[in-house]
């Protein structure tokens, strides 16, 4: 009854909230396309100059490529490591799950700065000196996306009731490896895909660890944006807008996939 129609108070409240949340986004967007924007509510004239300049900037393209590359490598590594591990734990060693929950909640509870301090102290001297290299960053990224990957893979395994599937496959004579590769993997793939994309978008927005661990040596899109902020506002806006649009596309795909997957699982 009440639910179908929201009153005026609720409508205006939501309108205010949306304005508040969207103004910084829209402001950045307009600034990236504005030629002249001073002392008026909307820009006086528009231009594509900044966007074009951005794509001509080799450092930007480099940073974009570095980000893609590092995120892809980290997510791929995480997939390769987490898939068998979570599979073994969920299916064969459910007793370990309490311990796993502790391990997995740590990256949430420990802020990036703190993690960076630990990593720098461990790897900046002594036998393994890898601070400033991509290795340490990939390792750090692995920990950052650990919760998303674990939850995603575990939930998919439970949704498709992996232990039962595996039992049936083995009863029908499939070897364990074959059962995993031909029965379990295709079934959990959509769910795993979602957590992979989510992890990718999380890493794409990572700044703290990247800046503290390898900031001077490797430029990702976030580090590059940070350096550009103080130079040209319009150019930095264009970069921020591009970055945000990318994240937007990614999260739309995520949501579509999620709906599809959940819809199918629910049927």
């Amino acid at each position: 009854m009440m639910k179908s129609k929201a009153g005026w108070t609720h409508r205006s409240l939501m309108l205010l909230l949306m304005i508040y949340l969207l103004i910084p986004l829209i402001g950045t967007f307009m600034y990236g396309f504005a030629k002249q924007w001073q002392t008026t509510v909307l820009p006086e004239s528009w231009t594509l100059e900044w966007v074009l300049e951005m794509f001509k900037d080799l450092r930007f393209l480099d940073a974009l490529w570095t980000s893609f590359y590092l995120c892809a490598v980290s997510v791929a590594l995480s997939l390769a490591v987490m898939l068998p591990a979570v599979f073994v734990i969920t299916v064969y060693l459910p007793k370990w799950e309490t311990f796993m929950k502790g391990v997995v909640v740590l990256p949430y509870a420990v802020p990036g700065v703190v993690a960076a301090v630990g990593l720098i102290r461990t790897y900046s001297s002594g036998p393994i000196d890898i601070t400033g290299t991509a290795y340490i960053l990939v390792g750090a990224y692995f920990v950052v996306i650990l919760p998303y990957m674990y939850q995603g893979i575990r939930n998919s395994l439970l949704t498709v009731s992996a232990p039962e599937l595996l039992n049936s496959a083995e009863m029908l004579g499939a070897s364990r490896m074959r059962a995993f590769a031909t029965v379990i993997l295709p079934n959990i793939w959509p769910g795993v895909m979602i957590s992979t994309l989510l992890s990718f978008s999380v890493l794409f927005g990572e700044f703290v660890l990247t800046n503290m661990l390898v900031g001077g040596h490797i430029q990702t899109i976030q580090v590059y944006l940070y350096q550009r902020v103080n130079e040209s506002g319009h150019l930095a806006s264009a970069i921020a807008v591009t970055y945000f649009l990318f994240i937007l596309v990614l999260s739309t795909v995520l949501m579509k996939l999620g709906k599809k997957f959940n819809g199918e699982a629910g049927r």
Partner: protein
Amino acid sequence: MKHNKRWMLLGLAPFVFMVLAFQLTPILTMLTGSVSKSGGGFTFGYYDKIFHSAFYLQAIKNSLLIAVYSSAIGLIVGLVCAYSITRFAPRIRDRLLMLSNMTSNFAGVPLAFAYIILLGNNGVFTLLFKQWGWDVFAGFNLYSWSGLVLVYVYFQVPLALLLLYPSFYGIRDQWREAAALLGARPWQFWRTVGLPMLTPAIFGTLGILFANAMGAYATAYALVGGNYNLLAIRIGSLVAGDVVNQPEMGSALAVLLALSTLLAVYLNHRMSKRSERFTASYVSGSSEKRGRGGRKRAWLAAKEEAGA
């Protein structure tokens, strides 16, 4: 059987290695680093120094204050908006939630940058207001305490909203009708039934928001650089900074920061367990016979926890 075990080990080994190398060892090194003398031996000297240094104490105080303020404001705004959002038809509600979710991705450097464009020294709105002669914002400085709180609140609100809105569905319309029939005014209903129901969710969310604000580094770093004394910024500059590297001091401060966020996340954990218990008992309450037992169990468990 033996083959079985080896197979499992093979699957787990890379995972154990990665977690040990990049999660547990760094945390351990940080812990030991914060209590060991530079020549060797054990000391609490760094902690002692921190608690006797006005500078570090101020950083801790600033961080705590900014976390408390931004979480409280974010929570109140989020709570009201979450209630509002549940009053909309599902289709519009999902749109609104999607928009809030989208903006919650907008954090860190890009967010700080957007605020600099709009409200910084030469920001669009700053100049506009000056032109119009509005002096409400004359005393406002984005690169100070008030500016930081403003930007922090921006990323806290959507988070609070997204965390809180599901718990409003735990409050049934029937209860409101029942309360109204018994003569309760809306505010009485909320005071005696609604808010107590939401309490676990509220405290749980508060824990997440607090930890989120305490650990926030990118936003503050991009906005004020090293110019504002915050715990996270201090740690960053002590460990990887441009001035003098004092890794031990940085470790000690990092341990303190981690303690505060761990505590907050633990609060969330306890509270979400409790609210799960609430909702679980109401779900089972749909079938009457089991419902009574479930509710009783939940009540007992809650009592037990309160006593502990």
